C-alpha cells in the first residue's frame, strides 16, 4: 500500500497540471476551487449527487463477468464495468451532474462546454435541461458535420450549439472557444469541462466526480471475489473514465493500471492520438501535460476513428502517473478497435463505443498473457449506438477488414 495525496494545493501533480490561464480567468478559477472545497464538505451536496446518480442516471452500473470474451482471450477473466448503461450512454454524465449542481450552488445561470463527438455535449445539455440552466456547446465545424445526429440531440435538449471554425475546427479548438467565451462571461457562466484536463481544480474535480466508477467497481469486485482485480484497463481521450476507475485503486499497488490511447493509423504515422506514447510535456488549455506538438511547440492535430479519443493531450494526472510508473500506457490502432467493436458485439451482445473498444482490444491481448486465476476489469465507458454508422462506413466501404 502506498499513500497518494496529489494534487498539491496549487493543483500540481508532480511537475504537471497547475493553473496556466490568462489573468482574466484567475478569479473564476480560484472561486471555483473555493466553491468546490466548500461543496465537498457539505453532506447535502454529495447526497444530491448520489440521488441523481441513482434515480436519474441509473447507478450503480453492473460489474459484468464477460465469460465468452474471457474464453475467447484464453487467460485471465475479463470483467466489464458497464458505464454504457448510464443515462445518455456513457460515463460523461457522472461529471456533468456534479459540475452542474456545483454551478447551481455558485449561482451561475449559464453553462458553456466543449464537445468533440458530442457525448459530453449531450450529457451537459441533458443535465442543463434537468436543472433549467442555459446551455451553450462549442463544437468544431468538422465534428458538427461528422456528428449531425448528436447536434440535433443537443438542440432537442434545448442547448445552443455553436460551430467553431478557428484553428483546425476540432475538439481542441472547441476548448479554445469555450475558454474564450468563459473569459468574457465569467460573472454568470460556469465552464463545464468534460475531462480531467484544463486548469486546477478541473482535473481533480472531474476525477472526483468520475471516481464513483472505481469505488463501485472495487466494492462489487470484493463482494464477488473477496479480493482486488489484478489489472484495470480504460481508454484515454482526455482521461476521465480512466482516472475515474483508476483513482480508488491508486494506493493498491498490486493492481496494475493500464491506460489505452488511440494509435489511429499507427503511432509511427502522423495520424494518431497517442499523446503519452509519442508526445512531450507542454502547456495547453491551462495545464502542463503530455501533448502532441512539433519541435517548435505548436500543437498538432490528433487522429482517431473514435472522435472521443481525438484530443492532442492527456490530463496532468495521467502525465504524472506515467512519469512515476504507477500506471502504464499503451495504444491500440483503429483496426484493432474495429475488430474489438465487432468481437464484443458478437460474443457478448454488447455494442461498445469505439472509445471503449480500444480498452477491450487491449484487455483481450493482456488477458491472453495472464493466468486463468487472474482478473481484469475493463471500463466499458460507453455504448456504441453513436458509432454504428462510422463502423458501417468503414466495414462496408471496404476500408476496414
Amino acid at each position, binding site marked *: 500500500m502506498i499513500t497518494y495525496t496529489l494534487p498539491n494545493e*496549487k493543483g500540481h501533480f508532480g511537475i504537471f497540471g497547475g493553473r496556466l490561464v490568462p489573468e*482574466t480567468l484567475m*478569479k473564476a478559477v480560484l472561486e471555483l476551487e473555493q466553491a468546490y472545497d466548500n461543496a465537498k464538505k457539505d453532506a447535502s451536496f454529495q447526497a444530491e449527487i448520489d440521488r441523481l446518480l441513482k434515480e436519474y442516471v441509473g447507478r450503480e452500473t453492473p460489474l459484468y463477468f464477460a465469460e465468452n470474451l474471457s474464453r475467447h482471450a484464453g487467460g485471465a477473466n475479463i470483467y466489464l464495468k458497464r458505464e454504457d448503461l448510464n443515462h445518455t450512454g456513457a460515463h460523461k454524465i457522472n461529471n456533468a451532474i456534479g459540475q452542474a449542481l456545483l454551478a447551481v450552488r455558485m449561482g451561475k445561470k449559464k453553462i458553456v462546454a466543449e464537445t468533440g463527438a458530442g457525448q459530453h455535449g449531450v450529457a451537459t445539455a441533458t443535465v442543463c435541461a434537468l436543472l433549467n440552466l442555459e446551455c451553450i456547446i462549442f463544437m468544431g465545424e468538422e465534428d458538427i458535420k461528422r456528428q449531425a445526429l448528436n447536434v440535433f440531440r443537443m438542440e432537442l435538449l434545448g442547448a445552443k450549439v455553436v460551430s467553431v471554425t478557428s*484553428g483546425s475546427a476540432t475538439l481542441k479548438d472547441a476548448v479554445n472557444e469555450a*475558454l474564450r467565451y468563459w473569459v468574457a462571461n465569467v460573472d454568470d457562466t460556469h465552464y463545464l469541462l468534460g475531462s480531467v484536463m484544463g486548469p486546477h481544480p478541473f482535473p481533480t474535480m472531474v476525477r472526483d466526480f468520475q471516481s464513483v466508477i472505481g469505488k463501485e467497481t472495487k466494492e462489487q469486485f470484493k463482494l464477488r471475489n473477496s479480493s482486488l482485480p489484478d489489472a484495470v484497463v480504460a481508454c484515454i481521450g482526455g482521461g476521465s473514465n480512466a482516472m475515474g476507475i483508476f483513482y480508488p485503486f491508486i494506493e493498491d499497488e498490486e493492481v496494475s493500471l493500464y491506460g489505452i490511447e488511440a494509435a489511429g493509423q499507427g503511432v509511427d504515422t502522423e495520424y494518431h492520438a497517442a499523446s503519452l506514447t509519442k508526445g*512531450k510535456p507542454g502547456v495547453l488549455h491551462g495545464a502542463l501535460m503530455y501533448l502532441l*506538438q512539433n519541435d517548435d511547440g505548436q*500543437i498538432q492535430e490528433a487522429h482517431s476513428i473514435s472522435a472521443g479519443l481525438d484530443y492532442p493531450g492527456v490530463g496532468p494526472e495521467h502525465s504524472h502517473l506515467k512519469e512515476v510508473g504507477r500506471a502504464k500506457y499503451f495504444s491500440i490502432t483503429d483496426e484493432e478497435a474495429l475488430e474489438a467493436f465487432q468481437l464484443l458485439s458478437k460474443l457478448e451482445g454488447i455494442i461498445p463505443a469505439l472509445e471503449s473498444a480500444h480498452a477491450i482490444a487491449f484487455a483481450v491481448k493482456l488477458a491472453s498473457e495472464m493466468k486463468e486465476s487472474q482478473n481484469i476489469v475493463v471500463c466499458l465507458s460507453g455504448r456504441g449506438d453513436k458509432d454504428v454508422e462510422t463502423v458501417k462506413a468503414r466495414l462496408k466501404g471496404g476500408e476496414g477488414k
Partner: protein
Amino acid sequence: MNRFEQSFKLLNEYNGKAFVPYMMAGDGGLECLVERLVLLEKFGAAAIEVGVPFSDPVADGPTIQSAGIRALKNKTTLKGIITELAKAREVVTIPIIMMTYLNPIYAYGIDAFAQDIQTVGVDGCIIPDLPLEEEDIIAPQLADAQVELIRLVTPASPLERITEIAGRGKGFLYAVTVKGITGTRNLFDNDLNEFLKAVKKLSPIPVLAGFGISNEEQIKELTKNCDGVVVGSKIVELFDRNNLHEMEKLMAVFKQGVKIV
C-alpha cells in the same frame, strides 16, 4: 538605466504618454520583421511588442488569431524570430518585448530561451497564460537574464491581487481593458476609467492600457488615467492591409505640435 527607463523618460515630447504597438512576427513574412520594427520606432513607438505565433492562442480574438495562422503558414518559428531580433537590435533603440504563450518557450527550453533573448537584447517578455501563481516556472530565469516579465492585471482581478502583481513588476504594468480577449470591447467607459484609476493608484510602475484599443478618441480617454496604451489588433490589421499612413496617423496621437493628415 535600462531601455525601459530610458524610453519612458524620453516621453516628454509625447505628452508623457507611451504608444506601444503590438505586431505578429512572421505575418507578411519573417524577412520584413526588422523593417517593420524600424518603422514603428520611426512612427513614435515607446516600445514594441513582438508577438510569437501559437497554434492555440486562447487570449486572442479573430484578428490576432488569423495573423498567427498566417505567420505559422509562413513557417515562422521562435528560433527564427530570435535570430531576426538580433538583427533588429542593431537598428532599433527602444525596448523590444516578446509576447508569447508559454508552450513555445517550454518547447524551446526555458533556460535557453531566457539566455538567448538576453543575448539578442530583448528587454521584456509578456506571457498571457502565466498567472502569478505559476511564475516560478520561468520568472527566476528571466530575472537572472535581466529580462523584465511584464505582468497583466484585468478588470476581474481583485484589488489585493492588483497590488501584489503591480509590486512585483518592473518595466510597466499591462492593464487589460476588457473582460475578454484581444480585439474586443465590453466595458462601459465609466467602469473602465474607475478600473484604470485604481490600478494607477496601486502601481509603482507605469500603467499601460491594452486589448481592444483601436482609435484616437479611446486612446485620449483612456490615457487620462494611465501612462499609455498597447495597440494590437488594429496595428496587425493595418500591417495586413498595408495601410501605413493610417498607422502613422494613429501613432502620432500623443505627439505635440504634429498633425498628420
